[in-house]
């Protein structure tokens, strides 16, 4: 058995799981189980949100270790489900390494994503539906959808420039806040607060927050605390972005809006 390849395979699995937003215990357990399935009880894994370290001792007594650094990433449930499924299957069926590697490659090659227009539509629908949910009218919902699209464009554009999450969120909050005020001045929107809140739901760190809680409960304090800190930081970024747009509006219209 080629233990280098086995380590690489399980590392790739862990990396893809972490990349798609899995909890830390899932990443660690998947790597450990894969190593165990191929007959290595000596595999050790340590993962935090931006790094995985895996180490094993071969039956000949040789020590193999690998470290992978994780850049910042989003959430991709489709990839998470499929990697999890593949990991389960590999652990049960234990195919030869060639076949296991091929299946991993196939999985990565056949990933599906929604097209950019479809994603913009999703931003529109998500933000628009939250406006009447919080008490806005139908016209507000339309404005909220437009603000959602503006946030989506803003996030996509800034991600391409490689901006960090904090700045992206501040920018998104400011843009949507200003757009909501603009639509109110034009006369399309009726309640600036409901429009802004609906659009802000896109930026709110609900995902990070729930994941942080699950990590803390699983005993991964490092991961949980770093995610919770990130969620808090994003919450502050949203407040800052909204604050900037409200403050600018006060300056321009003198509190009339």
């Amino acid at each position, binding site marked *: 058995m080629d233990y280098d390849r086995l380590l690489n395979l399980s590392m790739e699995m862990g990396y893809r799981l972490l990349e798609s937003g899995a909890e830390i215990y899932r990443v660690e357990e998947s790597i450990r189980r894969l190593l165990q399935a191929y007959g290595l009880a000596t595999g050790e894994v340590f993962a935090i949100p931006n790094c995985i370290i895996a180490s094993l001792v071969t039956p000949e007594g040789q020590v193999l270790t690998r470290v992978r650094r994780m850049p910042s990433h989003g959430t*991709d449930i*489709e990839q998470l489900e499929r990697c999890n499924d593949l990991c389960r299957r590999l652990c049960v069926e234990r195919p030869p390494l060639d076949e296991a590697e091929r299946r991993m490659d196939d999985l990565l090659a056949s990933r599906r994503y929604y097209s950019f227009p479809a994603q913009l539509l999703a931003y529109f629908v998500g933000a*628009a*539906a939250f406006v009447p949910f919080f008490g806005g009218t139908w016209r507000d919902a339309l404005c909220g959808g437009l603000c959602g699209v503006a946030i989506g464009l803003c996030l996509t554009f800034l991600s391409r420039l490689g901006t960090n999450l904090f700045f992206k969120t501040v920018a998104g909050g400011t843009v949507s806040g200003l757009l909501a005020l603009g639509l109110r001045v034009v006369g399309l929107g009726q309640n600036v607060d409901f429009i802004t809140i609906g659009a802000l*739901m896109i930026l709110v760190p609900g995902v990070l*927050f729930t994941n942080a809680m699950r990590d803390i409960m699983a005993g991964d304090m490092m991961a949980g605390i770093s995610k919770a800190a990130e969620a808090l930081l994003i919450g502050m970024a949203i*407040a800052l972005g909204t*604050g900037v747009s409200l403050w600018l509006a006060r300056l321009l219209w003198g509190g009339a809006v």
Partner: protein
Amino acid sequence: MELIQTYLPPCLYAFVACVGFSVLFNIHGLGILICAVGGALGWLVYLAAAPVFHSDLLQSFAAAVFISAYSEIMARIRKCPVTAYLLVAFFPLVPGGGIYYAMEHAINGETDLFLNVLFHTLGLAGSLAVGVLLVSSLVRLINSYLYRRHRKRKGA
């Protein structure tokens, strides 16, 4: 009839919003429906708990417990990670309004109101967290109990 009018529209909005958000998290097929139904039912629990608890902190807690349990069950049925359903179905409960109103008070210089809203928002986030923690630790407990029993039987 009156009941339908108070309960149906908000749940419907939550449903549609969750459909939008599941696309953003790259969920395909049946998963979208499960997430959206989870979001709508979670909000229904939140609304239905109002006459019992008279406190939105407890209502959030009840809805969080419901959604976590729902996600655990759905994840067992479809054999996929719990996170998938939990993330999206939670969105309607996230206190997004609190952040905005707190900031509005801060800009207006109303420090009392600002602190009031801020702590209330943090409280809501906290009660969501406690709900999720409670269910996921209970599930862990049950799982390890079942696993141990399974191993004992195998050994005997």
